[in-house]
């Protein structure tokens, strides 16, 4: 078994963020997703924009999002992603998990 690295942890979080972002829109391209995450998190989550793409492709392989080519708002060809039904379910579950863990961590921190 591989040891869970820092990257894995980040990936998990990134997946959740992507899914959540796509939930509130119909279809978005990579740039828009990256901008949206940055805006909503008020510039906190801004790390490497590039790492977004392997994550997007992985989610696509898992069948949680679907990609198709379309024309962007500026008339350029772009790859748009949208959430699929299994993706919605996955988001629900991951969000629940996250909240639970975050809550637990919060409680531990309060105690300490």
């Amino acid at each position: 078994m591989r040891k869970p690295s820092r990257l894995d942890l980040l990936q998990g979080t990134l997946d959740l963020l992507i899914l959540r972002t796509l939930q509130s829109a119909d279809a978005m391209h990579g740039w828009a997703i990256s901008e949206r995450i940055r805006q909503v998190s008020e510039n906190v989550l801004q790390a490497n924009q590039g790492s977004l793409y392997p994550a997007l492709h992985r989610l696509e392989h898992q069948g949680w999002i679907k990609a198709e080519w379309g024309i962007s708002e500026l008339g350029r060809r772009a790859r748009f992603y949208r959430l699929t039904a299994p993706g919605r379910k996955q988001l629900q579950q991951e969000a629940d998990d996250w909240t639970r863990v975050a809550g637990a961590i919060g409680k531990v921190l309060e105690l300490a």
Partner: protein
Amino acid sequence: MTLSDLFLRLRALMFRARVEEELEDEVEFHLAMAHRKHLEAGHSEEDAARLARLDFGRVGSVKEDCRGVRGIDIFETALQDIRYALRSFWRNPGFVLTVAGTIALGLGLNLALFTLFNAYVLRPISIRDPYSLYGFTWTDRQGAGHAFSWAEYKQFEKDNLAFSEVAAVQYIYTRVDGHAFQGQLVTGNYFQMLGVTSELGRPLLPEDASAPGREAVLVLSYQAWQSTFGGRADIIGMKLMVRGFPMEVVGVARKGFQDISEVPRDFWAPVTMADRLQDGSDLFGVEHPERLEIVGRLRRGQSVSGAKAILTAWSQRITAQLPEDHKAAGILLRSKATSIPLTPELLIVFSPLVIAFTLVLVLACTNVASMMLARAVARQREIGIRLSLGALRRRLIRQLLTESILLSIPAAILGFIISRVTIDASIRVMFATVPKDMLELIHDVPRPVDWRVIAFMVFATLASALLFGLAPAFQATRANVISSVRGEVTSDLRPVRARNALVIAQVTVCTLLLVACGVLVRTTMAMSAFDIGFRTNNVIAMEVAANSRRQVLDALASDPEVDTIAAASAIPLNGAVRTMTIRADDGPAISTAYNEVSPEYFGILGIPILRGRNFTKQESASETPVAILSAGAAQSLFAGRDAVGQIFHLSGKPARDVRVIGVAADIVTCCIPWGKDPALIYLPTTSATSAAVLVHVRGEVEAVRHRLDTRLAELAPGAIGDIHSLDQYRAAGMYAFRAASMIGAALGGLALFLTLTGIYGVLSYFVTQRTKEIGIRVALGATTRTVVGLVLTQSLRLTAIGIGLGVGLALGVSRLIASNLVFMRGFDVAPFAAGVLLVAFSALAAGYVPSRRAARIDPIQTIRYD
């Protein structure tokens, strides 16, 4: 793996360029958007581009990560491995050719064997739904099948059991224009049941067989139409004489259909004609002769085990009233989907052949494995460096295996060609060596290269690639990183040990094959020389139809070249034996072979009457209840007493008491491999009533046979069935063994050749590897003799171990075979001695060249080498 994942991976694999382009576009788009944003924020063109890239991270590694998600890197590395391997092959074509050639030899032979096996045993017969077709018979307590009478068949048809359709068939043999014609008498629904249409005219129809005696029509096979009648278009309506009875050709069956029996048939005729075409009791008469086979289609949804239960119950019910001996003990339900059904018995009979062929392939693989090992050791340095640079061992093994599989591709192609050539050549050899009279009975069956043959080829190729590639791959990558980089490959002796093991294995297999082949040849020789108890020279035997018998006998009697005429109900050595049960007054019942003969029979064949006397003419004519026993029969019936004058009971139809008037010497009735009959009785008959006539002739027997055949055919068309010299019968009976000896000799020779090259390779390598050591020895005063001795000792040591193992195995195998064949009883030292000497001598010869090379090593040069 989800469905979308699979889909995306496949897409990535098949449209690699396009997927790659899309990734490029996507990243490009992102960068363009980021660039625009930074421009709008007031940065300069140059800064905007730089910032966009900075935010994005390393484009190359992002793309690499994206590719990783696709998960097709395994193919990409495979592609790398293939390119790498091809480059190294290109530099060393001799190696590739040797490997491919060696493997192809073994592969080709096995593929040839499988192609034949497929043609007879696996390939379904070309009829509608072959897999629902079954042959049915009930069996007695000995497990022997039973032929059905017409009444039994009718009952079976009426009771309408597990089958949706049933038909009855009977084999019939005749000669048309001097050609052997094998046919099938069938019920009228036969062609409909099989779904066989006609090429020309019409198939047989139910109306043709509506009542006994109807219709005098027949359907030819396409093959017979082509070969015997040259495919002439006016064949329909022609009259052919079938056993002396004119039959009208109404059709030619569709191409590719040659009946569902083991041997292809030339024609089909209505079973209702049986009485006209056959001597003896009427199939539809009161005697209810049992001659029919039943075939049928299992009902849709009917399981085989269920059908067996139903049919067993039926057979037992039908035979309940019969005497104990005639009651059904079990049933046989045999698939008719292929020419020869795939049964455990068949596999047992076939297994020695399969094992011998497989061993040759294994031998070829060991040779190549040994070569691969030598190559891997030579590449130890390269492999060591790669390992020390962090290459995974798994990855290196995969690369070496890729090479093996690549090497096996030309081997497979070459092997395929060899298999075709081998099949053609062996069929040609068979036609050239088979006894002449057997030729016309041999039909070539189609031997297509279908998916089964291809699948076997792929499987055998991959298996041999693994066999010759796996061990060297593991061995080579086990190298000690540090020493191999330094070039100290000889410090690891394990590859040498592995190669020695391979040589021992080769010698073992080779010895086993050679000894087995020797045993086979010796057996065949013993059989050829075996005293069968009677003279075969200048005797011609023929089967004569009852309606023309008088005419034929008169013609024979007046023939100037015919000396003596004898009659018999069965021709000796024709491969069949008829048995009956007899019992002495106070003794147990014994099963014995029997023959009904005229008094001349003993003279014509030179069978001595040991005690008592021959039949008289009167006894023959009146079929008096007297008998002559063979010495074996006399011994088992009346042990220790004089058999002549004794009475025994014969439980045939009719049952009667028979008096013994003489005792004759033992002979072989059925087949030479079975040896002399343990018991045989002769009953009197005359040439007027018996089916076979034997004549002793003057002059060259084959010429006389041909002349008689032609003359009798003119006199009474179709009246003569088989007509052969007894020498031909004898040769035909021996042919299987002669063929097996030829195959054995070919395999043995090949095995010897492979072993020879194997030993040569290993010893050459041994000498190269120990050049330094030998050089030092020579420098210290070792003579040529000691050096040659060093190498030869090495060779002989391995050979001795191999021979020991091989002889042990061969002993076991020959004991196993001996239990089934009369002629292999007892230990025959000759084939063992010959096999061992041959292998030992070859090993010495193979070792000689490398040993001379070792002797020529110049000590100065080798010591200076480092």
